């Protein structure tokens, strides 16, 4: 049973709702292919849509699922108006990742805290990569270098640079999942016994 900030059924403070879930919604939209500005717009639209009517507390996990669902519909509507479609494969895996990494199944830290910690965890995971992998990713995401520039800097071919970064990203995802698993185990261990 997920723990909520308010008793179930009580009216939710909009400010608290936004503060709790905005980062999760924004990141989810980014995962669906939005750039940061579009994600910002759609996050705002999502909360405005949801808060058109008073929003009653339903538990944090349920609220998050609901918000992500609304956000996805907002994006689908927008893409439909643009005559485009969402170009993300394995959308179920994306949703599963965000459900896992923002969930609060065991009453540990709130989803808000987890979202805040996620980037710290990613930084930690990044530091665990090989120097070449770190260099490749920093050149790509910090300096916006092309694959060819990265390949040249590392003395490998463009295809090798692509493989290097793909492997590095898989390692990062695995690292995040492992860390999440440890957190969940820790939370389970810390949970007071029902006996």
């Amino acid at each position, binding site marked *: 049973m997920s723990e909520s900030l308010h008793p179930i059924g009580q*009216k*939710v*403070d*909009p*400010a608290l709702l*936004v*503060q709790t879930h*905005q*980062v999760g919604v*924004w*990141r989810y939209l*980014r*995962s*669906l*292919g*939005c*750039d*940061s500005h579009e*994600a*910002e*717009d759609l*996050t*705002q*639209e999502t*909360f*405005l*849509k*949801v*808060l*058109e*009517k*008073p*929003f*009653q507390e*339903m538990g944090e996990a*349920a609220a998050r*699922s*609901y918000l992500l*669902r*609304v956000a996805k*519909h907002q994006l689908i509507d927008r893409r439909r108006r643009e005559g485009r479609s969402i170009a993300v494969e*394995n959308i179920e895996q*994306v949703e599963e*990742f965000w459900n896992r990494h923002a969930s609060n199944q065991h009453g540990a830290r709130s989803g808000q805290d987890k979202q805040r910690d*996620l*980037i710290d965890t*990613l*930084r930690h995971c*990044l530091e665990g990569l090989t120097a070449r992998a770190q260099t490749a*990713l*920093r050149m*790509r*995401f*910090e300096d*916006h270098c092309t694959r060819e520039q990265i390949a040249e800097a590392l003395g490998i071919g463009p295809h090798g640079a692509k493989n290097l*970064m*793909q492997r590095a*990203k898989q390692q*990062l*995802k695995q690292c995040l999942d492992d860390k999440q698993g440890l957190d969940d185990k820790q939370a389970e261990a810390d949970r007071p016994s029902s006996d």
Partner: protein
Amino acid sequence: MNHEDPIIDPLLEELLGGQSPPDLTARVLTRLSQRELTSPERNGATQSGLSQAATPASQDDNLADGRGLSDSRVMVARRRVRRARQWQTYASFAISLSLLGVLVGAGWLLWQAGDWNDGSLAQGDRYGDTAAQEKNKQGQIEKHGGRDIIDSSRAANETLGSSRDNRLPGGMGENPPRRDSQETQPEKPGLETRENSAPRHVTPIERPSLAKSDAEIVERVNRVIADGWKAENVQPAQAATDSEWCRRTYLQLLGRIPTVDEVQKFASRRSLDKRGQDKRAWLVDRLIQSETYREEFASYWSARWANILVGQAGGMSADSPIDRKSLEGYLHEAFAQNRPYDSVVRELLTASGSNRPEAEDFNPATNFLVATLDQDAKLATAKACQTFLGQRLQCVECHTHPTNGWEQDTFWSMNAFFRQIKTERKGDNGPIRIVNRDFQGSAGDGADEAEVYFEQQNGILKVAYPRFVDGTEIPRSGKLAQVDRRQELAQLVINSDLLPQATVNRMWQHFLGVGFTTPVDDMGPHNPPSHPELLATLADDFAASGFDMRRLMRWITLSDAYGLSSKITDGNLADDPSQGQPLFARYYSRQMEAEQLFHSLTMLAQVRSANGGIIASGDDRHQWLGQVTQKMGNDEDTETSTLDGTVSQTLLMMNGHLMNNATDLHSGVLKGVIASKMSPREKVEHLFMASLSRKPNKRELKAIDEIIQTRQHEINKALQDIWWALLNSNEFIVDH
């Protein structure tokens, strides 16, 4: 956005690329509050909690529709809401009445004490006290009465901080916007506050001093223009005659036609004098530099620049907040002393103090902002960009530019520079004072990162921070002690290439009739200039000259293009600016501007003073121009004029008091001609010279002889009729 990994890539962009998620709390809550204000009925219905997200599994549209509750519960809830609302209305009305009495009494006492009132008392939100607007907004929310959505946005309201302090007990209303001395720096008089001690964040750029001579610059202008003719296979018109050139030069530099003496003096000079100076250069230098014309030159250009800054109608009516006389006085001094234009721009953008001379902190330069400070300083933003940068951003206030891709963000980022000011007014008719203050941000939640909100067409609120049109950002603090946004803006404007380009373009249009772009204040990728290289070069030279307006005038008036005849020939027929980009293969004829017409007719109605200077009374000029030009009162601050070739203009020219004065037998040129010992024919020739700067041709002389023969018994009246006809001719009113 092509992410190879949809999850890790965005996270890495966040971690390494600095694309952090925004805090949207304040924006969402503000938008909700606005929605509450605009849709009270809908929100009233929702107060009952009828519509709620019952289940996350349902479609979001369904969730928002309020399904799942019985109709009876709906009706009961609505009745309850209605009763509550009625009760709140009665209570609000009673309390408001009593508070109104208290406020009227307090206001009367303050007025008696001669205290400053906030200008927004008289002008509503017109003068841009954003904090007061936020307070008003919150007050209105309270007045709508305790709805759920308002209660739940309490957190946002509390971020407004001191706004609560202004509310009267009971939360049913609030004090009228007041002087928020808590929010401002100690209020020093205008010129002192301009010397704000905030650190400067934009470094002045160093421009190389101008190494080229005027002759070299003019030569380059001629070459580039001639290249255009060659490329388009156009033959330029012949050179204008001396009298044509002389007439247009007096009109463009002094705002009036030349007298007969002035035309003859110029015509009688050799092309090159003993020192080898060209006669046209001699006349230009005489008009812009000599003591003889100093006052007249400054008077005309101050009035003309005031037109650019506050419009022709700005300050012309009794109820206008602008003190046009003071503004023109300020500009008069600037033109008389030939002050660098960039320093004038800086003073106009950063002026603080009162706009009228009776105030101790009088600063005439404030009249530019006084004229444009509307709600949220939107007009000031648009006007400053249009005037100094040659860019029309006003449409971008509401939507993306239809052709050049400028986004709303561009406008509002510029608008953020104008948010540290507010206006105050002493009494209903006192001077208006521009005061610097800390800007707390649109949400009022602190000045450290003072943002401006704007709403996109889809209803989404966005934030903007001060950022110049070229993308240069300054620190976001709204505290004057940390960042003086107007000072930074002024430096950015002066550093920008757009300032000299916009000025050159405007001046070129003044002298040649058409600018490098049409209109001159709408430059940008959507409206490329006809001669981009020439515009850029002239702008660079103008900036390098130290923004010397007189030199710029000299370069343009001595160019070949300016000196061409206005006649359309087979060779230059293709040069039609109304059909395409101008080639300047002839001088483009156009109707005199209102100022030029006024000065010319006034001069003809006067007996010229011995010192040669002819300066019309400023009050008379304002009165006449106020009659022919009116403000449209729209967002663009556009104006309408009766000098547009319509019946109004015809009547004004035929029967207006200016025309009556100029054609009076007992005054001005006509009086002098009648009293002279010239023959009737010589008198007519003199009238031609006085009005058209030329002698009559054979056909005209023949007609005149016939008139004189048939009206021998009333020769003076015949001369008066001829004079009237000359002044009502197209040739007189057209600058050609």
